[in-house]
């Protein structure tokens, strides 16, 4: 149960080795916090588990293969084996090389499956659990790239646009049953996913995203932008006419 001060008792991190997921877990960590780390088996996952155990958490490692849809039900079942999940974070995603992504059908399909199909499938599986327990949050990591899809990374952007719409809608559907959804739209996040890319203005750290998630849940929000001012920037960009938008260096 999330207590009166917004502190959860259990977390499920789907994409449990992502920088943002771990930043969220670190912020919530306290003795006895149950954390299910769902990711591919890897040294990174083991290291993350060790770190959280050192912070007093009770960690379960669960296998997650985003593109193997048939395995999702088992992943979710194992994650809920220890009891209710208060906050489930869908944090996995794939950026891909934006130019290659629209030339290479396999990469395009992979992006669509990892960033959209898998979250939708897992989202429905999670919402069944949340409906039964009548409390809890699903946090979906969207992106500003999905707010207005740009030429520069439209394959990735389109997958996030789909994810964004699905989870906002799921949130509306779950509301009356006590469960909630938080959609997070970060800008450029300095993480392992973007390492090697050139930084852009208003870039944020995984820690700042984590803080926004925690505040968003405390404040019972449906949607948060990180950083907050991006909301203003994007609501301007949304209405820029296409011929002009095309010429913008974004």
């Amino acid at each position, binding site marked *: 149960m999330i207590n009166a001060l917004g*502190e959860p008792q259990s977390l499920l991190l789907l994409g449990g080795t992502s920088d943002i997921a771990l930043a969220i877990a670190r912020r919530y960590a306290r003795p006895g916090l149950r954390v299910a780390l769902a990711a591919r088996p890897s040294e990174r996952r083991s290291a993350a588990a060790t770190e959280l155990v050192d912070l007093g958490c009770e960690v379960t490692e669960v296998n997650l293969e985003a593109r193997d849809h048939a395995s999702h039900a088992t992943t979710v079942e194992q994650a809920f084996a220890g009891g209710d999940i208060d906050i489930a974070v869908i944090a996995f995603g794939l950026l891909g090389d934006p130019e290659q992504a629209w030339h290479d059908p396999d990469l395009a399909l992979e992006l669509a499956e990892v960033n959209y199909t898998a979250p939708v499938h897992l989202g429905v599986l999670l919402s*069944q659990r949340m409906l039964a327990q*009548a409390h809890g949050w699903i946090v979906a990591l969207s992106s500003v790239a999905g707010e207005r899809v740009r030429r520069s990374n439209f394959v990735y952007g389109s997958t996030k646009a789909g994810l964004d719409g699905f989870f906002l809608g799921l949130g509306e559907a779950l509301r*009356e049953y*006590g469960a909630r959804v938080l959609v997070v739209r970060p800008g450029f996040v300095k993480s392992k996913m973007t390492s090697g890319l050139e930084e852009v203005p208003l870039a944020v750290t995984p820690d700042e995203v984590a803080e926004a998630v925690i505040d968003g849940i405390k404040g019972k929000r449906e949607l948060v932008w990180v950083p907050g001012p991006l909301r203003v920037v994007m609501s301007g960009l949304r209405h820029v006419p296409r011929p002009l938008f095309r010429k913008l260096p974004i």
Partner: protein
Amino acid sequence: MSDEAVPAIKPSLPEEQPMIPQPLVELHGWGRAAGTMSHLAQIDSVADAVSALRKSDSRGVVPRGLGRSYGDAAQNAGGTALDLTKMNRILSLDASGDPATVTVQAGVSLDSLMRALLPFGLWVPVLPGTRQVTVGGAIAADVHGKNHHTQGSFGNHVRSLDLLMADGEMRTLTPDGDTTTLFWATVGGMGLTGAILRATVALQPTETAYFTVDTHRAANIDDLMQQMSQGDENYTYSVAWFDAVTRGRHMGRGVLTRGNKAPLAALPTKLRRDPLKFVAPSLGTLPEIFPNRMINKATAKAFSTAWYLKAPKDRTGELQNITQFFHPLDMVAEWNRVYGPNGFLQYQFVVPFEAAEVFRRCLEMIVSSGHLSCLNVLKRFGPGNPSPLSFPMPGWTLTVDLPIEHGLDRLCDALDNEVVGAGGRVYLAKDSRLSAAMFRRMYPRLDEFLEVRREVDPAGIFNSDLARRLELSKPTTGGRT
């Protein structure tokens, strides 16, 4: 409800009848934080309760009374809460017994019980800070009042109770004899051993409904604690309000009020005509208009100073009525709305008398934290009772009401550490945020309770948000979809 009059209740299990699915409603405690959605089942009879139990799924059921516990004790996300407030009949009164006893359905409020008993010159032995609690809730939380140091908590006065258990059977439990273990696990058991459906409570005789009250101001916490330590035994009732805002040498200045039931002879002639009059004025209901941060530096400081200064420095023998002495907050319905939509939490802890230094340090931490509390209570507890989860133990208890704001988690965690280090604990009826790990450390007899629970409710049918939070129930998954 005619079956209610039969002394030994053997509930006949009704045939499976189509029940209208109960919609999910948001339930929360008096602190209005951490609400969740439960199915609320209206219980009008024992048969209703049995039927609701039979129909419960893996999310289980929890009994609910008037919703005055501050946290998540009487809510059950995804499961069922049994609304017992319609089971509110007073079944029988034995006024000539020694002591006199009354047998009631569990949903009777202490308010209606007092109103019914006073004309007979009978008094409810333990009254918490509000009369708007049910007898069932008073037992399940083992509530205490200003007379704890002399008369113990509510459970000490219960002569027997009827518990509807997870197997659908009703059992009558008494404090001694074969059923003693289950009786005391049910006292303070937060509704997790079963649903208390009726109880027999011992009463006290009283000549009047008034109190002779002595009031003293104390300049700081040391003065207050010293005054309280001296002479508490001369008073049945003793409690202090203190200022939790002012820092420095006046830190913890307060007002000590102690009193005894007034004998008829102490009443002026005017009041002697109706000495058992129940005086409970109502000033109305607080509307839902208050924003968050109503309690801010300016209002908290002004309130605390005014409250301190309005109290007489030293006054003895003042006559006060029930509302003045016991339940000033009951004059305003829904007063919790003053804290705004974010709600508040009440932090109440007890530490043994030996740990007075820890107690003082905790007060310092609260005062210097920047979190503001106006309704602050200090009291000395007497001996506890045999219940494994009952809160009171000999020592100092302190209560603060804190609006929910950023950083409150850190203050509460720090206080937990001090309290548990001194062998103390926090009160479950007020709690809405303790972790399972800390709870286990604070209640060393937890395993005794869990063993009883495993025995009488192996499937964990009685369940609540509090039970899940504090890991008093086995993990449950699935449920009604």
